[in-house]
């Protein structure tokens, strides 16, 4: 039985429909990440699960309980908020204790749990401080502690790391991952940061405009995006999406790009093979291109293209080549990046079986 499930959820604010017929369910111990651009309804969905927002239509189940109309405190959930939402007049200890306000526990049990959470999150020295006397990372730890003391079966996070700097975010990401492995609760985690999603999730639901575009493991989402939106949204630098026309000759299926270049598509596992001349979109991840100007054999496509510019991001570099009207990005070794001077023509190869194909009209995967 799934731990959390949304069944035919609708949500409208006045005349505006935010979520339409949404279905989603995760198993016990899963780490579900709701991923999507700003305004797509992630927070709305999470708040409905928490009971902070009314459901217009549909049913939410936690375990075998229908919680759709239950009070937030009776749902057996704990939540960590984006702005931490610590109680400013209470000490850290007071904040953790208030996390247990609705649980009728003996005072010793409350103390034991507070001590346990404080130790787990290494905030013991901070217990008697007020939130205003803590750094951002420390506040985040306290907020997580306040959720953990409840021993809830389901933990909710709403963009908990978005107010932290890059270094701290990496640290906290590992920390949350570690807590999940150690305590193994079911987690529903909202973010628009795909790195967080890829590193922490066991399941990702990619959302756009209130609709779940794809639900799957991080690998599935990354390697086999279900449609153009997911393909373009996941991956940095983004996947190259180029329009092409299908041609069939002597048992070979190829895609012809607008600039005369072509790609061999025989190794692609078509759900159904498109018609001759059909408009498709070919998706090529930047990191699958071979080293520029290296000897080529057995490639699906070989492009001779002029360099536009290169970009270095620390451990990585991205080269941008002129392709038709637009640009084609490819990952290169930083040491090689200097060789790619602007204007110079290079030869790059794309391996077979790595392309993603989409129907140009519907955007769906072929």
């Amino acid at each position, binding site marked *: 039985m799934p731990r959390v499930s949304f069944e035919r959820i609708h949500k409208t604010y006045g005349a505006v429909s935010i979520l339409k017929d949404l279905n989603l369910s995760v198993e016990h111990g899963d780490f579900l990440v709701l991923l999507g651009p700003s305004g797509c309804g992630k927070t709305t969905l999470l*708040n409905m699960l*928490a*009971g*902070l927002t009314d459901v217009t239509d549909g049913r939410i189940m936690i375990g075998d309980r229908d919680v759709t109309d239950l*009070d*937030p*405190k*009776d749902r057996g*959930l*704990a*939540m960590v*908020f*984006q*702005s931490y*939402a*610590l*109680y*400013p*007049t*209470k000490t850290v200890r007071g904040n953790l204790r*208030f*996390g*247990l*306000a*609705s649980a009728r526990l003996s005072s010793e049990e409350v103390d034991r749990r507070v001590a346990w959470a404080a130790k787990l999150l290494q905030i013991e020295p901070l217990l008697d401080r*007020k*939130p*205003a*006397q803590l750094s951002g990372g420390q506040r985040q730890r306290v907020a997580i502690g*306040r959720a953990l003391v409840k021993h809830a079966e389901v933990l909710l996070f709403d963009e908990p790391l978005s107010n932290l700097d890059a270094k701290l975010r990496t640290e906290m990401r590992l920390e949350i991952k570690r807590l999940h492995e150690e305590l193994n609760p079911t987690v529903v985690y909202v973010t628009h940061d795909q790195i967080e999603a890829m590193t922490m999730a066991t399941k990702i639901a990619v959302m756009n405009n209130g609709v779940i575009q794809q639900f799957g493991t991080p690998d599935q989402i990354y390697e086999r995006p279900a449609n153009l939106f997911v393909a373009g949204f996941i991956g940095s630098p983004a996947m190259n999406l180029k329009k092409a026309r299908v041609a069939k000759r002597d048992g070979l299926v190829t895609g012809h790009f607008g600039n005369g270049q072509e790609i061999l598509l025989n190794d692609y596992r078509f759900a159904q093979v498109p018609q001759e001349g059909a408009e498709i979109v070919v998706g090529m991840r930047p990191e699958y291109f071979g080293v520029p100007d290296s000897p080529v054999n057995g490639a699906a496509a070989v492009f001779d293209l002029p360099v536009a510019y290169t970009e270095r991001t620390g451990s990585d570099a991205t080269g941008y080549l002129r392709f038709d009207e637009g640009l084609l990005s490819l990952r290169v070794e930083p040491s090689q990046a200097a060789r790619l001077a602007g204007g110079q023509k290079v030869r790059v190869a794309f391996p077979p079986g790595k392309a993603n194909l989409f129907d140009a009209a519907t955007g769906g995967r072929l």
Partner: protein
Amino acid sequence: MTDIASAATIGATVDSRPVVRRRKKRITGRSIAVIVFLTICALFFCVPLYVVLTTSLKTMDEIRQGNIFALPQVWTLEAWRFAWFEACSGINCDGLRVGFWNSVLILIPSLILSIALSIVTGYALALWDVRWAGTFLFLMFMCAFVPFQIIMYPLIAMTRSIGVYGTIWGVAVVHAVLAMPVLVLIFRNYYKDIPQEIMNAAIMDSGSFWRIFFEIILPMSGNILIVVLILQITSIWNDYLIGVTFGGFNTQPMTVNLANMVTVSTGTASYNVDMAAALLTAIPPLLIYFLVGKFFVAGITAGAIKG
């Protein structure tokens, strides 16, 4: 080596550079105008206060000489004693102290009632999903502008029907009711600044209206409570109309007492006693200002969220 040496010389030259003095502020025509204006304002309040204070410390003989700006030749607290213990208000000659204690007895329940009602209403309106909250607020807002005189007679009828007319409780209830609209608006606007996420966290943690109020919201309300406290103490203490209308014969507040003393004087007017009585009536609000005045400004300017 040379580098260090040159760095040292640079440092030295920087240090030895003459300090640029800040220009002295010149007195401009504008600042003179401001100072003159402020002085006039100060005199406007200080001169009458001076006269009242000195007169209250004089004997009647001295006052009759007519030199109202002179300091007392003989300093005496006799007028103060008389005003407090013996002055007549109507046929009752027990002094102002009767009115003082009535005022205190009116003040305390009025304060508690008005603040308790409006703080909880403001909290509910700002932080809970109250149905018709907008309409309710608008009505409150309109009520704040209804002149007291218009509803005075209905209020008399209502207090009479619930049997509190002419008692201290009648006055307290009317004070609480009349203060509600403004106080609710003040509290609601203050609580509106509390981030929704804190309330959401509290609802998930506890879910209890009263527990959240007492443990989370009330401790965050110190500033605004001081503001409201001062507003209410001053307005209740200085009130005359409600006291004279709803107070019974023996439960009239100090202001009514004072007015009776000053206006209905049999025989000659005792200016020194009148002045002393006026000052006695004014002391409690003044005292409050001196004690918590500095929090007042802080309370008006600060929001709810502060560590």
